């Protein structure tokens, strides 16, 4: 993301990960911007380290049955009392050899829609894959 884009995002759209995220303990504040016109893919860029970015996915078009159950401790920490307050997106990575894209359904990023307090939540459903294939035959 360019510096201009970061600056233009403004405070109102900064996601705050107060505990950092696993593997990146010092990464606290992120901004989102659309990678695709439809908003399905976004990039989440760290304000402390603009080199650090994740491609994230609004999961329900690719995975319509996805129903993450937010553990109570996470509900409390994020202040989410009903599902409408939760913004959910999943990290996407590419298999460098095959070129295939995968979404992490086990540990989505979840933010409170209004306060933008966010956390990478580890869901207790062990059947959810960390690598759910996103592209088939593309």
């Amino acid at each position, binding site marked *: 993301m360019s510096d201009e884009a970061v600056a233009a995002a403004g405070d109102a759209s900064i996601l705050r990960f107060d505990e950092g995220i696993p593997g990146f303990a010092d990464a606290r504040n992120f901004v989102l911007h659309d990678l*695709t016109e439809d908003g399905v893919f976004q990039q989440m860029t760290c304000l402390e380290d603009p080199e650090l970015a994740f491609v994230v996915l609004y999961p329900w078009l690719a995975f319509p049955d996805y129903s993450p159950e937010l553990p109570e*401790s996470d509900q409390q920490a994020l202040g989410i009392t009903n599902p409408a307050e939760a913004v959910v997106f999943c990290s996407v990575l590419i298999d460098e050899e095959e*070129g295939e894209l995968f979404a992490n359904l086990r540990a989505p990023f979840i933010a409170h829609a209004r306060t933008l307090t966010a956390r990478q939540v580890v869901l207790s459903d062990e059947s959810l894959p960390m690598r759910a294939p996103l592209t088939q035959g593309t």
Partner: protein
Amino acid sequence: MLVLTRRIDESIVIGKQIVVTVLEVRGDQVRIGIKAPREIQVHREEVLRAIEAENAQAAGSAARTRQAVARMPQAARKRRVDPPGSV
């Protein structure tokens, strides 16, 4: 590493707010209860390590992921339709 011996229903207190209790021992499995403030995240270690590794790989390949996303045909991406009022 500090090593303590505990019986079932006995606990260990860490700091002022974290209490770890042995609930059940069955064969080589131990059930443990953890009371901690909500800002303290508690994870199974191997799951946390796996997520750290996935995050590192996702961040490391973000540029290539972005290129692959840009190349995806629109039809494969479908359309996002937000309910009114959502972010």
